[in-house]
């Protein structure tokens, strides 16, 4: 398996704040990655570092085997769609789609036209006068139609309604299936994209706290639900990721259970349910916060 990105001990300091703190990870070719984390966790900074838009304080970044900073050979294979992308003041949407193909070798004009229609983008309206959702849609169309070997979407759908977001997920998945490429999607709408992702990177306070295959991550925890006393008896000394209690009922999230344990839980009259990716990450993020505080 080829690695498209190799990051080693990467740190980016803004004054005394480490926006990215000794991150080490790799991104392999032709997979969809989720870069998840809370606002201000360091997602955008990390993407800016990977695309050569920002400069590392220390550590190394290799994208397609080379440093991305001021490297045209690397950068022309990257499409980076930002939530708050600025456009030249006098640009209309049509100017974006006219200029994009000069910079993206794989640009597909037919695909772009199809997406423009589906997102109902007004080509002749000045971007300054467009709604937030329409501006986001421009970015989404560029990101998809550029078909760059490495595509970054940084919270690409601010202001997009649910229908448009679903359209984005559908088109991304369809096009990805036909023309595999590496996609890194940063978002905090975790559950919406959960089924899209093949690999999950979670960043919190600048640190990569989860770097796991999405499938194994989904199965890594179980919620045990039942009467509080039964639940507590079953959980015993297991590590508790999260606990909710209402009246005499409790729901406790613990690590994956094996078959015997599942049967024991059923016998004890407890219900087991899957934990969504979002809940899992929220719980893991809280855990890490506690760890950082006590450290």
């Amino acid at each position, binding site marked *: 398996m080829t690695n498209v990105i190799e990051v080693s001990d990467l740190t980016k300091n803004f004054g005394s704040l480490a926006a990215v703190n000794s991150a080490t990870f790799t991104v392999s070719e032709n997979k969809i990655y989720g870069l998840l984390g809370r606002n201000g966790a360091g997602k955008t900074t990390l993407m*800016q570092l990977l695309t050569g838009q920002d400069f590392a304080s220390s550590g190394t970044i290799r994208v397609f085997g080379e440093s991305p900073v001021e490297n045209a050979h690397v950068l022309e294979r990257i499409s980076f769609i930002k939530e708050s992308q600025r456009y*030249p003041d006098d640009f209309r949407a049509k100017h974006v789609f006219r200029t994009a*193909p000069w910079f993206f070798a794989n640009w597909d004009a037919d695909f772009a036209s199809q997406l423009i229609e589906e997102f109902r983008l007004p*080509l002749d309206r000045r971007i300054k006068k467009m709604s937030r959702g329409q501006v986001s849609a421009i970015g989404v169309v560029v990101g998809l139609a550029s078909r760059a070997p490495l595509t970054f979407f940084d919270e690409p759908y601010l202001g997009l309604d649910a229908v448009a977001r679903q359209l984005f997920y559908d088109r991304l998945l369809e096009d990805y299936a036909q023309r595999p490429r590496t996609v890194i999607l940063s978002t905090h709408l975790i559950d919406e994209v959960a089924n899209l992702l093949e690999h999950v990177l979670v960043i919190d306070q600048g640190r990569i706290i989860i770097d796991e295959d999405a499938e194994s991550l989904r199965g890594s925890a179980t919620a045990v639900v039942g009467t509080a006393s039964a639940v507590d008896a079953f959980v015993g000394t297991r590590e508790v990721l999260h606990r909710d209690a209402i009246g005499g009922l409790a729901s406790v999230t613990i690590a994956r259970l094996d078959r015997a344990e599942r049967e024991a839980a059923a016998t004890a009259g407890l219900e087991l349910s899957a934990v969504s990716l979002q809940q899992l990450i929220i719980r893991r993020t809280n855990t890490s916060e506690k760890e950082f505080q006590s450290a």
Partner: protein
Amino acid sequence: MSTVLPAPFTPATPVGRIINVVRLHLANPWTTIFMPWIVLFAVFLANLAIWWIIYTAAGGATDPEVTEGLQYSGATSWIFVYMIVVAAQAMSVTFPFALGFGVTRRDFYLGSAVTFVLLSAMYSIGMTVLSVVEDATNGWGIGGRMFSAVYFGDSWPQRLFIYFAIFLFFFFVGAAIASIWVRWRATGLTVFFIALGALAVAGVALVTFTANWASVGGFFLRAGFIGSFAWSLVLTALAAVTGFVLLRRATPRN
């Protein structure tokens, strides 16, 4: 104009990448080309009306004294300031946009510089041609002067050179100042203008206390009219290098 389907892909040779940046700057020619010419034409019409009033009031003759006074016309000065704004927008807004398209800072700056030179050439050639017409028609038939104002020299080669030098100066100084903003935002600009002000005061003080105003005057006298403008190219080159150095390490922020 409403074609969605874009031009065919241009292979990204090193030169091709720079040309693509030039095309990006000119993708919407409204702000950079159409608008200035339209405003210039409007200003010209307004001036024409005034010259005509004077011409009529003088009884339908060109008064040499009026023509003499009109040679100090500043009717075109706004267009140079406008180009500061064009350059500043290129640096502050087109820069983050181009980087999103995978352009390197180096290619962006070189492409921008080529764009500035092309625009300077277009405007200086256009305005020189107009100055020649102005001369040939004895001030559009009514003794008006706008493109042949005295500061632009008195022959067309001089005017071409002076116009070109002024445009280049404003483009690159605008770009350099905008680069300070892109790099350090408002703080950078504040520090820069305070430093510039302090430097100017210090310069004046130095020349005054050493009683050297005569040699400063002598410098411009020796350089001559054209030579003084030629010296502006040194400042322009300095601004161009400064802009490049600053932008090379700049990060697009929101």
